[in-house]
């Protein structure tokens, strides 16, 4: 009896432990199979619905997983760093992880890919020593969302420069409605602050050195802190877009500057309490020195250098970044990176004119980075975030802002040096 119990326990242990070792065994079937990691992004969702078509056409079986953006980075990094990856194709964020992935040799070079249909600077971000590694998928740029009804009530027109923006924020900040919102949560705020820094004439990095303690950048950080500290929603220093959006949708924010991708969600009548007719989209007001909002490749697609099915992976990559799918994306309000998708007649018919206008403006005048472009971007964002939070908490009046910024510039430069990117 006792032996039988032991056997049962043993069998159970084996059952529990076996799946752990199963990864390597089920490979090399006759049929070609690839593993694809997608982001929880509207384009990832679109791909999921189209993958059966790809499978039917090519006979390649696609096993896909869909992850939230930071989890996607974690998973890819862990798998690649431990050399245990079976990923063939994946969605990737060029500005966030591109440099580090290129440096570690995790991307497959894409020399045979035809990049003619993409803006050159969007491809250059994923290029090193002449080889391109990332196909740009989706672009986003900073815009101003605003409440047409509130502007009308107050007799205001849409701000076109930072002085007007501040005046409007002040005038609209009443009756439980915040006059102005933008991300205030340290690291998350860095991308949204970037356009303000550019419009004041500053930069995060210049020539591989941190320069966000320059008078221009500091003025921008003070301005951002003044607006959010005085007219922002309560608790803004812990708010990223996912916290601001519900407040905007509940009608408690008059103006919100953030990335263009959220337009579809804030006018979605199932999610928002404000009629779509009352929601406006405008280009980010121009600053005292420049009129250059960020316009970045927020998502790209790449192949793993460790892929064992490179032919099948390449076929999938070509298909997933094809012009046809880009047009499909545009038709569902995803702002794609391909030039031809914007020129498509059918797209132009249905696309929101506000999106088209702001994109044209940003594509012409914008700057292709929304964060310090470096391998240790995560840590650098937290460091800059400390300066932003200090500015918001003091409504832009902090006396130690300059010394704090200098200290953080030094820390970011140390990171650049440690990663061998200083001065490059």
């Amino acid at each position, binding site marked *: 009896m006792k032996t039988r119990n032991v056997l049962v326990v043993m069998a159970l242990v084996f059952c529990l432990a076996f799946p752990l070792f199963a990864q390597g065994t089920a490979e090399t079937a006759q049929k070609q199979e690839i593993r694809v990691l997608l982001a929880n992004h509207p384009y990832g969702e679109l791909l999921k619905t189209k993958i059966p078509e790809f499978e039917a056409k090519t006979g390649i079986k696609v096993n896909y997983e869909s992850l939230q953006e930071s989890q996607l980075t974690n998973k890819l990094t862990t798998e690649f760093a431990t050399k245990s990856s079976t990923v063939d194709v994946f969605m990737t964020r060029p500005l966030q992880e591109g440099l580090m992935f290129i*440096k570690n040799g995790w991307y497959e070079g894409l020399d045979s890919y035809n990049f003619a249909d993409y803006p050159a600077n969007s491809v250059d971000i994923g290029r090193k020593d002449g080889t391109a590694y990332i196909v740009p998928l989706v672009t986003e740029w900073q815009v101003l969302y605003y409440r047409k009804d509130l502007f009308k009530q107050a007799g205001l027109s849409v701000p076109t420069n930072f002085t007007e923006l501040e005046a409007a924020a002040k005038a609209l900040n009443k009756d439980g409605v915040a006059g102005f919102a933008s991300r205030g949560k340290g690291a998350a705020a860095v991308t949204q602050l970037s356009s303000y820094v550019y419009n004041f004439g500053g930069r995060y990095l210049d020539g591989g050195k941190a320069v966000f303690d320059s008078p221009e950048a500091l003025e921008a950080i003070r301005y951002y802190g003044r607006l959010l500290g005085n007219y922002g929603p309560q608790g803004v220093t812990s708010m990223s877009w996912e916290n601001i959006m519900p407040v905007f949708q509940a009608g408690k924010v008059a103006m919100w500057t953030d990335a263009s991708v959220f337009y579809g969600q804030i006018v979605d009548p199932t999610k928002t309490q404000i009629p779509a007719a009352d929601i406006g989209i405008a280009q980010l007001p121009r600053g005292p020195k420049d009129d250059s909002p960020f316009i970045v490749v927020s998502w790209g697609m790449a192949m793993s250098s460790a892929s064992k099915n490179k032919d099948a992976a390449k076929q999938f990559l070509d298909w997933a970044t094809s012009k046809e799918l880009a047009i499909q994306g545009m038709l569902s309000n995803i702002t794609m990176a391909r030039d031809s998708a914007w020129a498509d007649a059918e797209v132009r018919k249905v696309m929101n004119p506000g999106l088209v206008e702001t994109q044209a403006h940003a594509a012409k005048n914008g700057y292709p980075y929304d964060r310090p472009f470096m391998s240790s971007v995560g840590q650098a964002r937290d460091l800059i975030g400390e300066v932003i939070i200090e500015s918001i908490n003091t409504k832009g009046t902090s006396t130690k802002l300059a010394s704090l910024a200098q200290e953080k510039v030094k820390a970011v430069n140390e990171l650049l040096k*440690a990663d061998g990117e200083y001065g490059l």
Partner: protein
Amino acid sequence: MVRQGFFEKNLRYIFPLPAVLFVVVLMVFPVAYTFFLSFTDWTLTSGRPLSVVGLNSYLQVLKEPRFLEALGRTFYFTFGSVIVEMLLGTALALILNRSFKGKGVVKTLLLLPLVATPVAIGIVWNLFYDPTIGILNYVLSVLKLPQSGWVSDAKTVMPSLIIVDIWQWTPMITIIVLAGLAGLSSEPYESAMVDGANSRQVLFRITLPMLMPTILTAVILRAIDALKTYDIIYSMTGGGPGYASENLNVLAFKYSFEYFRMGQSAVMLVFLFIIVLLFSLLVMRLRRAFEL
């Protein structure tokens, strides 16, 4: 006579082998590997392979003010939540130990926070706590009380998180203590009645001392968990605003998966490991003292 093969002769080693392998692969190896990593400078952003640098990573971590703050917060969170949970949980158990109408319903309701997923709890509590559209500030404004920033204010974020932990984990203490109460022998109570002890004397002289080992067990389990808290904090504040709610586990996570500084992250986890280990040993010794 039956011929004894290798298998039969070594049964005593072979049968526990799967369990031993299981423990080694899934528990011993990760801990040992973390110790190893803590002596390296493995940093993915540099693109260099890892090299052993001795205590260098330890020095860097100890110089980092964020680490020391996180260390302090780890204890603050643990003591803040576990002490309240112990008092509340035991009190609730003593109340629930008598029979009254609807006792079953109350017990089931108490169990609910325990079975909910921490991340779901975090999301729901974040909605409660939202300073603009949350229900808590609404209630405060109706009562004409000053509103709070809750988790979005650096000054109130830790107490707000502790409230969530207390809400979720007090029932666990209650349930363990209830089980302890059910196991108490009735003889001391009978003699106390004969001696004319009043109910307060019974509670403080008999019930609580006899319950102490049970309460301490519950407290160890809770405290070890609270030291390692990650899910609620990460899902509710991500360590913010700024760094105001980072405990060791959240900080170590950020170091490994946002900064990719695996060596330094391993150092922090080694510290956390040692703290949890020492804490468990200490309380186990205390418990033995009570049992004597």
